[in-house]
């Protein structure tokens, strides 16, 4: 009698989790924007036997945004998943893998991300800041002012903006803009007069960095900027004179 087909894989089976780990690693490795994503749940798995020691695996994954920028050298295992009240972003991914002689590899992946609804967050935390658009006027002004303040005080290379990763605005009880942005070192020093002539250094992880800034607009003006440069350079913290330190 022919052997009975193997029982279908469950989403929490070790084989499924191994495939999901390979898939998440592939997704983060092939992304160049935003933050690293961590596995939240395996939504579905389908296995199509192709022959002896050869399977095609279709995975549906639910991922959550971490606090690690995609350019950060921090391993995913050490990255913190953003909390619900931090206006979490979810990623839904379909991944096609193959397993040949026990070796998993990704053939294709497709992801969509979306933020949690503002209403859900405000129900739980009425005063929590909410995600703002990257092209919001206050967001752009805060990023520009923060990077300028950092470069104005730094003795290292002149940093240029790569991308804004996140921005949140809070209106009550204070009006505060929170921004996070990726930066890259240029061939100029921070004291360069003609920054238009500054060019990004060749791609190398040590030339990238990440900044977070908080600008209080009301009741009083305040700006705090923290930048961390990756690679060989230690973390650098900057706050304008007379203002909050961190």
């Amino acid at each position: 009698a022919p052997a009975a087909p193997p029982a279908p894989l469950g989403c929490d089976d070790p084989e499924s989790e191994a495939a999901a780990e390979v898939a998440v690693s592939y997704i983060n490795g092939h992304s160049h924007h935003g933050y690293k994503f961590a596995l939240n749940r395996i939504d579905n798995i389908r296995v199509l036997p192709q022959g002896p020691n050869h399977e095609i695996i279709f995975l549906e994954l639910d991922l959550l945004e971490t606090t690690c920028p995609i350019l950060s050298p921090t391993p995913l295992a050490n990255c913190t998943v953003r909390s619900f009240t931090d206006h979490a972003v979810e990623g839904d991914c379909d991944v096609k893998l193959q397993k040949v002689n026990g070796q998993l590899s990704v053939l294709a992946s497709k992801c969509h991300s979306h933020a949690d609804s503002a209403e859900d967050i405000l129900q739980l935390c009425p005063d929590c800041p909410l995600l703002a658009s990257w092209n919001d006027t206050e967001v752009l002004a805060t990023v520009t002012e923060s990077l300028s303040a950092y470069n104005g005080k730094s003795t290292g290379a002149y940093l240029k903006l790569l991308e804004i990763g996140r921005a949140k605005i809070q209106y009550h009880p204070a009006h505060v803009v929170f921004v996070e942005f990726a930066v890259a070192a240029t061939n100029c020093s921070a004291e360069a007069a003609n920054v238009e002539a500054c060019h990004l250094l060749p791609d190398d992880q040590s030339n990238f960095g990440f900044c977070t800034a908080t600008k209080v607009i009301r009741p009083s003006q305040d700006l705090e900027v923290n930048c961390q440069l990756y690679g060989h350079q230690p973390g650098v913290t900057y706050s304008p004179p007379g203002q909050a330190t961190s």
Partner: protein
Amino acid sequence: SVARRAVAEVAQHDKVARPVGFVPPPPPCPGKIRHFKI
């Protein structure tokens, strides 16, 4: 309606076959939530 009938059949079969103290296995998918559900 196809889904509803399938569930009813499983439930009926389960009801007949279940011995005392039987705990049905967890559904194979989706898997467990590691952090929180959006």
